[in-house]
């Protein structure tokens, strides 16, 4: 015998069983699955795999070694280049034009001269260029030529105009020799003076 509530129960259960999914649910599920599958594919590609570890390590090591070598080579090339430039400048500068001298301040800040400075301060100081390096890097200016004195001008003229015999006469030795010869020649005109009388010891 069927109970009077069975009909209501069956209708409720059949209503639950007859529910239809909303429109486009299947397409939305497919779309979400596809999106997630792509994400998962990317994640799997990026995932660390132990069987690839050895060559990844080798590759990384080689790249780091190459980078280190490049840094060292570039550094040494720069140092060499700077030295060569400096040598070229020194050779090109005339000997009569020395490097300008300048008195530089000992320190620009108080921290440099402070004893037992903080390591961070020391690190900053190392990065600054030293005063000597700054001076050497500056362009060399020629020293202004002062006007020659009158004596100097005459000497210069003499050097350029006078004959070699005249220039030789300017030598102290030559002049002293000439003076000696003239003195000897001059003394020849005079008879030597008579010798002084000998002292007999008798007084008048």
């Amino acid at each position: 015998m069927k109970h009077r509530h069975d009909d209501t129960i069956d209708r409720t259960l059949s209503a639950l069983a007859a529910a239809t999914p909303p429109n486009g649910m299947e397409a939305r599920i497919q779309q979400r699955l596809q999106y997630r599958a792509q994400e998962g594919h990317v994640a799997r590609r990026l995932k660390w795999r132990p069987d690839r570890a050895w060559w990844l390590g080798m590759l990384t090591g080689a790249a780091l070694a190459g980078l280190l070598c490049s840094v060292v080579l570039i550094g040494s090339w720069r140092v060499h280049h700077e030295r060569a430039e400096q040598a070229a400048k020194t050779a090109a500068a005339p000997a009569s034009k020395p490097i300008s001298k300048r008195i530089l301040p000992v320190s620009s800040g108080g921290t440099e001269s402070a004893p037992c400075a903080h390591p961070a301060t020391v690190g900053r100081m190392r990065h600054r260029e030293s005063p000597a390096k700054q001076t050497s890097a500056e362009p060399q200016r020629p020293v202004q030529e002062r006007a020659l004195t009158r004596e100097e001008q005459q000497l210069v003229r003499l050097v350029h105009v006078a004959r070699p015999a005249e220039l030789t006469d300017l030598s102290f030795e030559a002049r002293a020799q000439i003076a000696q010869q003239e003195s000897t020649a001059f003394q020849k005109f005079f008879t030597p003076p008579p010798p002084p009388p000998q002292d007999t010891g008798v007084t008048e």
Partner: protein
Amino acid sequence: MQAIGEQSLTVFSAERVLAGPDLAALARDYSGLLYRVALSVVRNSAEAEDIVQDVFLRVLEREAELVRVAEIRPWLVRITWNLAIDRRRKVRPDQMEDLFLAELASREAPTDRLFEDAQRMRQVLHAIERLPKYERQALLLSAMQELSNAEIAAVMGKSESGVRSLIFRARARLRERLPD
């Protein structure tokens, strides 16, 4: 030429077997059933659809294990049921019951009896909610006509006779509890 064709067919079949069932095909075949299972628990259309999507995302995460699943339909229903129970704990079903009842009643009854049917269904659903856990599960899954008792037994991890007994007791309890 024929040998090459046979060989390629064999390779293709082997690949299909290794790859397991296609997810798109699974979604096409089972999304309706899973939606109804989820709806019977959460009683909200949007929530039910969200649960079905979550089910297939879980399946995607375990795609590699799909080959080892012997009975795919009970497995999917079990996942759906568990997810729906979890979701029902977070969402208050009382807030969504009126709309759900209106949908159910409109499918079943003519307009003049709509309100009366909705009230009766509400009573039945409340009574189902008060049933013991396994009796409620067996009754709701038995409502899905696609599932046999053997499959319901596989979902619940019980024997077929146990499922039949649970359904019988659930109905008896409902009859007792429904008001005259």
